[in-house]
């Protein structure tokens, strides 16, 4: 049997360790080049996803997804004895994928220079890992292994899921409360079957720190694939895929191909408020909104510019792209109202004044928006993506006179649009 993978791929380790235990003969495909072999027509015919690890059996059957491959290569003991044990194996496999995988990536990838470091993401990832380790600890304090009283695929898969953490960031201090997990990890690590696959592993002595230089080098080499909004991911996959081939020259430690699921989760963390990811500046929306509601514009607008924190917040101009479709003004107002409703969760960290200019059958919609962060806020949450593409967005320079004029005009519901249509109605998003 032939396993396609790049070297040191922890997902492929699951399959290779399972095969060591069961004695199934698996060869790693020689001459496999990540980003080339898996883009060939031949490979895609067998594995349309174009991802590795991927398994080709002797009788020409194909399997993708590392868990299924590892399961296929397992023996009866690894799969679990009773029906309950089989289900428990499955339970820990899912746990490794959903509880461990994304958080581990969020913590480790910046350290490896694959992703930009973000303090809040980092802290959340640590919290998620602590929770996952507490779950493991609760089981392993009373039991030698994860399922039943024997090594199963659950141990192998969760072990592989912890490898990067225990190598790069989980230092002795961090591991200390999880003594049972450490005990179990060492046991799995030191099985001869594991040792045959996982070589050169050393337990983390000190948490590695984010190195901006490493990140820049990596970015320069492989492009900003991870920074793009997720819709563009597909096209960007190639540069990301090239890294394992190059890694040997520059000794960047095992940059892994980001799994699409990991990426999506990184971009859309479990948090209720996607803005939590972005640094919190000094500008307080609640305070401003209170002043705006209670005071004259002559006071509230200077207050806005006085308090505005351009480092952490940005001002945008959004203009409806299809004014020719606008008919009755009340319908246009509903259009704005509907958008505001759908963006409800944005309210806490955003403010906008949208204006309708003109009259029935000759009108335009445009508005000035303020939100946390320097990028377009809508891609942060899938809930916010219904309307924004119907608008043309322009980021405004917070210091320029033009912006001041525009903000003043929109916040005070005055003036005309760029073609001279008079202000008709306004709506405030707050």
């Amino acid at each position: 049997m032939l396993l396609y993978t790049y070297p040191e791929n922890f997902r492929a380790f699951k399959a290779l360790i399972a095969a060591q235990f069961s004695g199934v003969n698996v060869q790693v495909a020689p001459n496999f080049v990540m980003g080339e072999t898996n883009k060939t027509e031949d490979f895609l015919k067998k594995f349309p996803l174009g991802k590795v690890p991927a398994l080709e059996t002797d009788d020409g059957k194909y399997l993708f997804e590392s868990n299924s491959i590892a399961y296929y290569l397992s023996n009866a003991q690894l799969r679990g004895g009773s029906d309950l044990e089989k289900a428990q194996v499955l339970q820990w496999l899912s746990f490794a994928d959903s509880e461990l995988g994304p958080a581990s990536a969020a913590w480790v990838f910046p350290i490896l220079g694959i992703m930009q470091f973000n303090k809040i993401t980092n802290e959340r990832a640590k919290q998620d890992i602590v929770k996952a380790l507490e779950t493991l600890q609760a089981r392993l304090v009373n039991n030698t292994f994860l399922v039943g009283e024997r090594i199963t695929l659950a141990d192998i898969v969760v072990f592989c899921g912890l490898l990067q953490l225990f190598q790069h960031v989980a230092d002795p201090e961090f591991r200390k409360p999880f003594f049972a997990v450490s005990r179990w990890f060492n046991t799995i690590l030191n099985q001869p079957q594991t040792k045959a696959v996982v070589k050169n592993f050393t337990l983390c002595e000190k948490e590695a720190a984010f190195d901006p230089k490493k990140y820049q080098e990596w970015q320069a080499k492989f492009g900003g694939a991870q920074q793009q909004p997720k819709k563009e991911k597909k096209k960007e996959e190639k540069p990301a895929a090239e890294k394992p081939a190059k890694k040997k020259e520059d000794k960047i430690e095992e940059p892994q191909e980001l799994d699409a699921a990991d990426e999506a989760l990184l971009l859309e963390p479990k948090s209720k408020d996607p803005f939590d990811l972005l640094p919190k500046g000094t500008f307080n929306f609640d305070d401003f909104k209170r002043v705006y509601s209670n005071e004259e514009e002559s006071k509230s607008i200077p207050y806005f510019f006085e308090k505005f924190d351009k480092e952490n917040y940005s001002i945008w101009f959004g203009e409806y792209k299809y004014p020719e479709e606008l008919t009755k003004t009340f319908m246009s107002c509903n259009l704005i109202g509907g958008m505001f409703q759908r963006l409800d969760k944005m309210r806490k960290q955003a403010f906008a004044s949208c204006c309708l200019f003109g009259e029935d059958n000759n009108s335009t919609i445009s508005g000035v928006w303020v939100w946390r962060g320097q990028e377009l806020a809508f891609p942060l949450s899938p809930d916010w993506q219904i309307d924004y593409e119907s608008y043309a967005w322009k980021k405004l320079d917070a210091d320029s006179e033009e912006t001041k004029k525009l903000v003043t005009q929109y916040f005070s519901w005055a003036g005309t649009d760029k073609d001279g249509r008079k202000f008709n109605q306004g709506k405030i998003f707050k």
Partner: protein
Amino acid sequence: MTVETEITRVANYLKFPIKGKLSYTEDNIIQMNINANEKIIGFSSILNYFHNEVQKKDNQHVQDFYQTKQFFDFANLFIRSTSKRDKYAACLELNSYLESRSYLIGQRISLADLVVFYSLNDIMLQLSPLEKESYLNLSRWYSYIQSIETIRQNTKEVNFSTIHLLGWNTAAHV
């Protein structure tokens, strides 16, 4: 468990033909015939004989080899001690030793696990659920070794399930 039973079970585990080879000396010390002329006398000596036989087949690390011998002595002197204090001190010591280990020596079953397991059986059977709880790591290890049929043989089963039935949070007693 008598030393005779314990030696028989170790021999069974190793698939070493033991039937009819065990007897007692005049002063009531256990002995084992290896051939027509040679006898090995004493519990520790017989265990060490097995241990050497295993070593011949199964080249373990020198360090592990001698550490196993140390556990034979530990089992003999402390676990099988007539003093109650020694026994409980042994449990405490094993419990803290096993916090970071799945097996007594290295990362697999060795004769040390077998011998300590058999020697502990009497003590473990007498422990109250709360005591088993306080020897958390020891209980975990014991219940694991017990689950291996080829080791357990007819050894009386120690019940750990009451711990869960009472719904105690085991981890809180560390």
